[in-house]
């Protein structure tokens, strides 16, 4: 569990991805593409933090399912509610 080198590499990657998100906003990409890239990077960062810093990758899979249940619940509310007013 105590792998300082791995944790450091992940930290650097997170740092770089955060910077990249602001850089993408400064590029003249299309709005949808920029949104996709920026949110995509956030998802990757979140998976890295949850997987390695919170050790979800090494915990019993059932813990991941608990987290995903919460996430799925929030997403269901967000997307169904937003769709309802389109």
């Amino acid at each position, binding site marked *: *569990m*105590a792998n*300082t080198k791995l*944790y*450091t590499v992940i*930290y650097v990657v*997170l*740092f770089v991805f*955060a*910077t990249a*998100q*602001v850089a993408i*906003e400064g590029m003249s990409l299309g*709005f949808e593409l*920029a*949104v996709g890239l*920026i*949110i995509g*990077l*956030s998802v990757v*960062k*979140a998976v890295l*933090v*949850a997987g390695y*810093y*919170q050790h979800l990758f090494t*915990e*019993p899979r*059932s*813990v991941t399912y*608990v*987290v995903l*249940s*919460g*996430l799925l*619940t*929030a*997403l*269901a*509310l*967000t997307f*169904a*509610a*937003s*769709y*309802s*007013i*389109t």
Partner: protein
Amino acid sequence: MSDDRSTDESAVQPDGGHASRPLAEPTSKQSTLRRFFTRDDLPPYGALRRWLLTTNHKDVGVLYVVTALLFLVFGGVLALLMRIELLTPVGDFLSADGYNQTVSTHGLIMVFWFLSPFAFGFANYIVPLQIGAKDLAFPRLNALSYWLYLFSGILLGLSFFQGGSFSGGWTMYAPLSVPNYMPQIGSTTTILALTLFVISVTVSSVNFLTTMHRMRAPGLTLRRMPLFTWSILLTVWMMLFAFAALLAALLILSSDRILGTTYFTAEGTPGSLLWTHLFWFFGHPEVYIVFFPALGAMAEMFQTFTGRRLVGRKWFIVSMLLVALQSFLVWMHHMFLTSINLQIKTLFMITTIGISLPFDLMVFSLIYTMVKGRLRFTTPFLFAFGSLFVFIIGGITGVFLGAVVLDYQLRGTYWVVAHFHYVMVSGVMALVGALYYWYPKLTGRMYNRRLGKLSFWLFFAGFNLLYFPMFIAWETPRRVFDYPAELTGFHQLATVGGFLLGFAFLLVIWNCYRSLWDGETVSSNPWAHATTAEWAIPSPPPLENFPGMPSYESGSLDFLDRETASTDGGTVTKPTPSSHDGHDSHASPWPLGISIGSFVLFLGLSGVATGGIYVPITIVGGGLLAVTLLGFGLESFSVTEPAVAERWPFAGIENGKLGVWIFLASDIVLFGAFVGSYVFLRAGYGWEAWKIVPHNPIPGLINTYILLTSSFCVVLALVAAQKGRRWGVVAGLTTTLLLGIAFLINKGIEWIELFHHNIWLSTDVQASTFFLTTGLHGLHVVLGLVIVLYMIPRALNGAYLDDERPVEYFGLYWHFVDIVWLFLFPLFYIL
């Protein structure tokens, strides 16, 4: 039996490493109060002190039942006031606003402060017994849940004395609920009282889920679990997620009322529709949250009093599971009269029809169990049978409301009132049956059988006389005190029924009260065919429940010597450092203290925007809460995890960590609802027309760097703890603290600059969503820093070198706060 700090110094805190110190002997004068609140052996039942300090699940269960019955009387009196008003078709008894307050608080009390807590009284008492546990996983949190519940109810009661209570219906629809239309402080108090109640529910959900998943007796697989416990397990999972959405709604509404944000009133956005989404996303699962425990109790009573196992037991459980899942997919059938599009209405009509199918299966299972068994018409069974009967009527009449075209006609009428009460009060009927059923176990005495049967018939007659005329007089407009004169007769019948039902309730309470002294004493199992574990031990059960370790490995319940327990089917874990002689603590003053602090704080917050006395009340409440939380943290309280237990699917993770994860899952829904609200409002406003509030993403980017670095430092602190490096732990935690403070300073500077540009929380909906969502995140940062501040001195004493779990648990929380920011940053600063 209980832990005693003055004699047992080996007790250690669950959060690791804090050895208890003997208390200084109090001097005579200062000591009376202190001695009163100091833990030692749990006092006898007759002592007030026992009920203030106890953390034992059975005591807490009794407290829940008794308190819920008191709230039943409160809500019942309000109902009778309404029924008196409705004797005539014009308003001549209550004032218009008085009637609105009566309707609203009656609904709130019955749904929140009576029904669920009544069921959870039984859950507290019975579930640990049925699964073979000595107590819940976190006994102090269990007591905390109870006291928060009680004080939230007291806060609600106080709202009547603050210019009037909430008067916008139990559904609290916006924009009626904002200060423009409901300016009295009492309305804000009601919303805050409900918020406090939701906090209690969340704490309780984490506790029950950890207990039921991690502390089942060996051999008690999920499949073998008793039906009442199954119903509670599914109820609590629904509670965990549904109440988080309600918490988000209530926090936003509180902010609209206290801080002046404009979520629910802003022009150009569907603010009022946002409330209905948030409320009903909670509200429909709430129907099953309220009904499932009653259903589980019905199943137990049907089995006991037909003398046979439930027909199709496995499918009954599968049906409950399906309903629990589907309950989150039907909420928009409460919104057919709003402006949501026809496609989604059609979709939700289909999902609503879908959710009725598993219920059909459950009803058939109960009916067929009666057909195959031999009926014994005891009082509990009469109530359970009556409940099934009226639930069928309630269920069928609800199907009408699930159809879009019929709903256009029936919504907002007494059809809904009648259907709703046929469902909800059928649950109450089953739970009154459960009260009679488990009364001998709780008290060691039998209720008066003749009075019991009389109370049922009065209850059943009163119920139907009250609610059935409402179906006939369905054209009566809901929540309004005047109605067409030709419907007067039906309403007068209903009023007679209301008083009859109220009398039946009083008879039930009287029977239970008198039988405490007059009832015949009973053996461990007064019912010939009851088979669940609670009936295998004395009535009432001893403090730690079982004479040995309960086990189902042989196929039936045995009590094994703890030393010789085998491990087949269970998971062996080392006893935790907190165990000492196998005896656990059963008393603590801090849950009560924290609840009083929270109560005072919330009371202050209700009027803090108006200034005056409310400001010092808020400060006193905050201080009291801080002191009691510190006392809670420093207290030596011993809880033993069972060495052998059935723990699927969480075998590889200890209780504390699972508790943190379950809490975080609920927090995901809370933040998800906030982000969802933002997305919803922005979608309604026009995604690209929406203007980003911060002028510059760089402060946000700097805060991202700060939080990422702090997360890294927490990881390094954990690594240092695992390697036994004290100064590494201290350095990691201290750096985290400093970075957290830097995050808040940076955020403060950014906010002050926005204020200088005349951008406030109330400026527009863009500003409201920005300030409130990032503010909620900032509050999480503050809470994290408070925890770190508590941990650093302990780390200096080497507290986490032998047991690094507290650092890991804190890390789980802190990384979660980091992850949330990883999404808030792009959403509020870039896109």
